[in-house]
């Protein structure tokens, strides 16, 4: 087990290396260099003489691209320094850390909603295989996949305010001040974001349950005369849920992507909204830093999922 974790950690290195290269190159390709942004802001503030070469030097853009990359990477992994925001001049890491809690809260609530829907409905669907309720639930799962989250979010913004004069809060309510108000603010985007991802989970849970229900030990349990509840809860669910855990790894990236959408629509000041603003302002250090951090979050969750596989399923042997 310890060997396996060390090996997995070792394998993270090439992946993180590729992530940094992808992020660095993608962000560098965005046209309209940061110099133009600074020049524009300086011209606006009235300074007449602008030394472009000095700005290039200040931003470290006057050296070849591979040296820029090494400097960027070195700053991050040696000093934890993601650079400074071009527009605001503050350290990027500090700005991101301020906005991270909102995204993480939204993400965790979304995951709870996702699994809260996917697991029970998937099990029920499998237990009633080919009955009407199974059919309805399967169509419901595809509907969850098909209906765009931004449409539902828009409808939630539009209709309740027309019908009941109610609209979601547009300002962040701090958790410490008003825990219930804070949860009430996050729960709607989380339900939308989570249930959009629950469709896949429902389908996988159903497939896994059906797979398990065909096993010999389930037949044994039935023939012992156990009731359906015991067969499902004691014998089937535990074995069926193990593969389902792996979809958590896949859905984290989706949930973070969906959080960008939800934060934009519900005006939640998290990392996603921050990224959208930075993209339109061409504030490169923020874009690359927040993309890199999101990718690392996804990688770490995937690592945890892989490791927890052993804890859940002793049959899995690590090599």
């Amino acid at each position, binding site marked *: 087990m310890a060997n396996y974790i060390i090996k997995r950690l070792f394998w993270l290195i090439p*992946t993180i290396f590729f992530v940094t290269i992808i*992020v660095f190159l993608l962000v560098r390709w965005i046209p309209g260099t940061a110099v133009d942004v600074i020049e524009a802001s300086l011209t606006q503030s009235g300074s007449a003489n602008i030394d472009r070469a000095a700005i290039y030097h200040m931003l470290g853009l006057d050296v070849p691209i591979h040296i820029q990359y090494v400097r960027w990477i070195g700053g991050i992994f040696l000093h934890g320094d993601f650079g400074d925001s071009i527009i605001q001049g503050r350290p990027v890491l500090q700005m991101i850390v301020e906005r991270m809690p909102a995204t993480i809260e939204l993400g965790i609530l979304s995951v709870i909603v996702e699994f809260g829907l996917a697991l029970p409905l998937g099990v029920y669907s499998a237990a009633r295989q080919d009955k009407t309720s199974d059919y309805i639930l399967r169509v419901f799962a595809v509907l969850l996949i098909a209906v765009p989250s931004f*449409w539902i979010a*828009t409808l939630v913004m539009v209709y309740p305010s027309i019908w009941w004069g109610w609209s979601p809060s547009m300002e962040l309510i701090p958790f410490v001040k008003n825990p219930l108000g804070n949860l009430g603010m996050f729960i709607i985007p989380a339900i939308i974001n989570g249930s959009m991802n629950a469709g896949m989970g429902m389908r996988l849970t159903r497939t896994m349950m059906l797979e398990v229900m065909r096993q010999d030990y389930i037949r044994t349990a039935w023939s012992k005369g156990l009731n359906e509840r015991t067969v499902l809860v004691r014998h089937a669910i535990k074995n069926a849920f193990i593969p389902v855990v792996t979809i958590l790894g896949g859905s984290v990236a989706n949930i973070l992507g969906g959080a960008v959408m939800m934060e934009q629509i519900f005006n939640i000041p998290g990392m996603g909204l921050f990224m*959208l603003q930075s993209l339109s302002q061409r504030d490169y250090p923020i874009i690359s830093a927040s993309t890199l951090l999101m990718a690392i979050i996804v990688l770490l969750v995937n690592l945890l999922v892989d490791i927890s596989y052993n804890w859940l399923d002793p049959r899995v042997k690590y090599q």
Partner: protein
Amino acid sequence: MASGVTRAVDSPMAEPKRRNYWVDLFFRMLKEKPLGTFGFIIMILLLFTGIFADVLAPYEMNKINLLSTLQGPSAAHWLGTDNLGRDVLSNIIYGARVSIIIGFSATAICTVISVIIGSFSALIGGKLDLIMQRFVDAWLCIPGLIILLIMMSIMGKGTLQLILAIGIPMGIGGSRMIRSAVISIRENTYVEANRAIGASIWTLLIRHIIPNIAPVIIIGSAMQVGGAIMMESSLSFLGYGVPPGVPSWGSMLSQEGRTYMEIAPMLAFWPGFVLSLVIFGSNMFGDALRDLLDPRLKGGIGSYSDAHKKKNKIKVKASL
């Protein structure tokens, strides 16, 4: 092929004359997969609407009529009008054209890229495979929407840009599925024989690998059309998609739909409804295709012969 033979032996209802494989598949879908058929009809309707948008739309694209703005549904404007007096139905019909152009082209690019990356990674193997898979790993852990947003910022708004920005990332992600399909057939004798006679990797790929993994490619593509349309709408919704003036379901939803929601609430309803319908259709059609084409499911639950046995059993029960 094998199932075709067994079917002829097993099922008394099988026709003595062998039909074309694809025609047979089509009839199987009609008989066994009502939801798949429904999805297929939606996709055909979408294609038809997109191609004949000029004929079908009651008004010209973006025809501004400031005398009738933000109207409700009426005989002249079935779905009402938006803030500039543009007919919503017409814009939704033209939006279908944008959706199919982007959906199908992006899927085509995605398929080419995923087949090339996936099969080369699997066929060459070794270090190249290892490096490429770490690259794909890295790509997959960056949230897709963020890659799309950055790519659209690089290339600027436009249809071609959207096709590339959606197709390329989807292709890199989709290569996983192709790679595992190729790995499962690369040990076959015919691949080995081809290598032995010194055929180039391209010959091997085009003559032998692609035909043998065709079901996987077709199923993947059918599923990805819906995904590509969804991504296009998401980007247009966030203002990174089609340029202004091009009707797209996503931008209709975010601009007119959200700005004028108090006065004309249905403006936010229709584009999303059509979008959901199309993605639902594409998913159901893809599902049905997978059940019908996937060789692992052949002869199992849901196959032609089994379904007939089941139906016959039900008939017997009913007659008793």
